[in-house]
């Protein structure tokens, strides 16, 4: 390999935007990327800072181990556990996610994804209220009224504005930004808020009240004027917003974790989804979550497709049961229920509540991650894997549930998540005496 290689239309898996127009230039030695054209600053860091470093492929009890030995150790931990939990999955391919669900099924364990700590409440709201939705392509081409609620796309999803929403020039909105009305609801004036036409600064913890009042106004129902004292937004301002929403051609509400992870959680999201549904009596209106991790939407899709539920699924009794709060990983750890944990591409030891981490330290943990993490340092078995999107091909889902194939830039000496998970799955089947024919 002496010449620099260029990958056209590569897919960036850093955030849920999953931009598929990246031009990557791979260094002549084939071990790093020197240029990531079209990428935002977050995407550039994701591609350019990726190096093949010299970690052991697997560690068992902190000692270097062969792949086969580590797979066997991991499978034995899972088979011996009475409540093994599988967690993470948002930063890996759908193919690997599928293997993880199979493992949870074969060991009668628990499976949950990082959705439970970001848009899990949205998942509950979709089930309870329903979702009027559209792809980002449709929104780009048609949405003349865009409302962001509890999110900061300029800093968290830098290309969301230009590719999919506010600034995108499109078939039916050739003027781009000039043809669209942008509204923003947040508790503080973010960099995104300063780009909006209308900004509503709500008091922290009053999103539900504002949404509820908007719903009532859309339906022409009673709203008490105490709303201003409670939320910081006057009834007239809300009325004005409602008129604009009712009179647009195609409206969309993008909502972020400012809504799904503040007090009220799934009720906040339910209220927003119901508002979008209510507005369909007047015009076309949709609501879309703005998702964080590159393939967290894929995790929801794969787990739903295989078990019937998007996250927080338990196989203890041999069939899938869904119950957020009971089978979500934070709760399962904080209550001390799980007795083994398989973590794929996530770092719960760095970001879970203290009680959950305390329990995590007392049980055998297996990790799969391209880099050492807090969790991998506590792990009984730690695998080093190739990075998806950069080294590994596969399928990921964009935040609007559109599936995209990855175009990796260069090979990694490490195996991918899918290979390791499949090996663990097969070893689990051997240990449990499940015949080959029964293995899907």
């Amino acid at each position, binding site marked *: 390999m002496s010449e620099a290689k260029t990958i056209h239309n590569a897919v960036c898996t850093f955030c849920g935007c999953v931009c598929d127009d990246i031009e990557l230039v791979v260094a002549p030695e084939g071990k790093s990327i020197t240029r990531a054209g079209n990428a935002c600053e977050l995407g550039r860091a994701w591609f350019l800072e990726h190096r093949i470093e010299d970690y052991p492929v697997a560690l068992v009890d902190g000692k270097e181990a062969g792949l086969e030995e580590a797979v066997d150790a991991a499978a034995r931990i899972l088979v011996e*556990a*009475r*409540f*093994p939990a599988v967690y993470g999955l948002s930063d890996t391919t759908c193919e690997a996610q599928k293997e993880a669900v199979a493992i949870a099924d074969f*060991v*009668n*364990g628990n499976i949950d994804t990082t959705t439970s700590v970001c848009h899990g409440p949205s998942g*509950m709201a979709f*089930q*309870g209220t329903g979702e009027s939705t559209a792809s980002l392509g449709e929104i780009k081409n048609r949405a003349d009224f865009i409302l962001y609620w509890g999110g900061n796309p300029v800093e968290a999803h830098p290309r969301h504005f230009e590719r999919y929403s506010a600034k995108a020039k499109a078939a039916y909105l050739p003027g781009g930004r000039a043809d669209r009305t942008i509204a923003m609801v947040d508790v503080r004036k973010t960099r995104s808020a300063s780009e909006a036409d209308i900004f509503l600064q709500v008091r922290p*913890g009053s999103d*539900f*009240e504002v949404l*509820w*009042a908007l*719903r*009532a106004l859309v*339906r022409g*129902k*009673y*709203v*008490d*004027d*105490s*709303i201003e004292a*409670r939320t910081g937004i006057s009834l007239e301002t809300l009325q004005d917003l409602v008129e604009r929403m009712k009179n647009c051609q195609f409206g969309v509400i993008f909502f972020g974790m400012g809504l799904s992870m503040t*007090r*009220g959680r799934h*009720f906040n999201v339910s209220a927003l989804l119901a508002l979008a549904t209510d507005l369909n009596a007047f015009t076309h209106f949709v609501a879309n979550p703005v998702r964080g991790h590159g393939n967290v939407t894929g995790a929801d899709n794969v787990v739903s497709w295989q078990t019937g539920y998007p996250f927080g699924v338990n*196989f*203890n*009794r041999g069939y899938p049961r*869904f*119950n*957020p*709060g*009971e089978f979500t990983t934070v709760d399962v750890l904080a209550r001390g*229920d*799980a*007795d083994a944990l398989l973590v794929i591409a996530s770092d719960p030891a760095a970001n879970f509540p203290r009680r959950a981490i305390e329990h995590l330290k007392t049980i055998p943990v297996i990790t799969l991650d391209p880099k050492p993490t807090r969790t991998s340092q506590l792990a009984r078995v730690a695998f080093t894997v190739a990075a998806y999107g950069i080294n590994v091909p596969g399928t990921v889902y964009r935040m609007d549930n559109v599936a995209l194939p990855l175009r990796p830039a260069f090979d990694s000496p490490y195996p991918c998540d899918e290979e390791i998970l499949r090996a663990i799955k097969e070893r689990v089947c051997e240990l449990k005496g499940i015949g080959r024919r029964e293995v899907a």
Partner: protein
Amino acid sequence: MRLTLHAVPEVPLEAEAICPDMLMGLSADKAAELPVFHGNEKARLGDFFSVQGEARDGTVTVEGDLSKVKLIGNGMSTGRLRIEGDVGAHLGAEMRGGEIVVTGNAGDWVGREMSGGRITIRGDAGHMVGCAVRGVPVGMLGGEIIVHGNAGNEVGHGMRRGLIAIGGDSGDFTGVSMKAGTVVVMGRLGMRPGAGMVRGTLISTQPAELLPTFNYDTTYRPPIIRTILIYLRKLGFTVEDLYLNGPYQRWSGDSIELNKGEILLYAGTRQ
């Protein structure tokens, strides 16, 4: 019959077997053979509990720290179940009749989707008292849940009939999406009580901040409150006389729905 916990489960124990319907008429030895699930492993009731006596009249007493034991009294239709200690999630789920008394605290989902009978918790209850599992719009269909301590969020979510009484405070979204039925909270209601309620009655003796979609109707002395509170007094609640006879504000809502629900808040003097 008396069940005493002798081995604390390491992972959640799902024990639908602890229910008078299952235990009535069984000898102690037969009862010990009933299946339970210890995590993903099938086990015997006797692996965790020592069983004494029989449940001829349907009375079963369970003692020990049962905070990891789920689904006790699941689908119960008759008899009496007394739990001496704390108990885990899904107590009396889908219960149809009989009585459960817990001397300690209870976990989440007490009386989930119950349709009859009475559950009394002397301590605190977790979240989701008398509500449905996710994805089901209708929760409790009948019966009574009496919690002497505090309760968590979403008390009576989607409730259609029955009575829930909380001696202490309740969490956020008390009576959310209620279809009908009665929830009495002697302490404070959490945030956003009665959101999306269609019909039904929420009563509290303490002031509460209501959603902007509730409107004030009147202040009056409804005789039904006196009837309910005297009934709760007989069940062991401490109810001061002023709450029996005092005036209550009536707020109707939720205007987004039918606006036929009511929240009654005590409006008289205190002491």
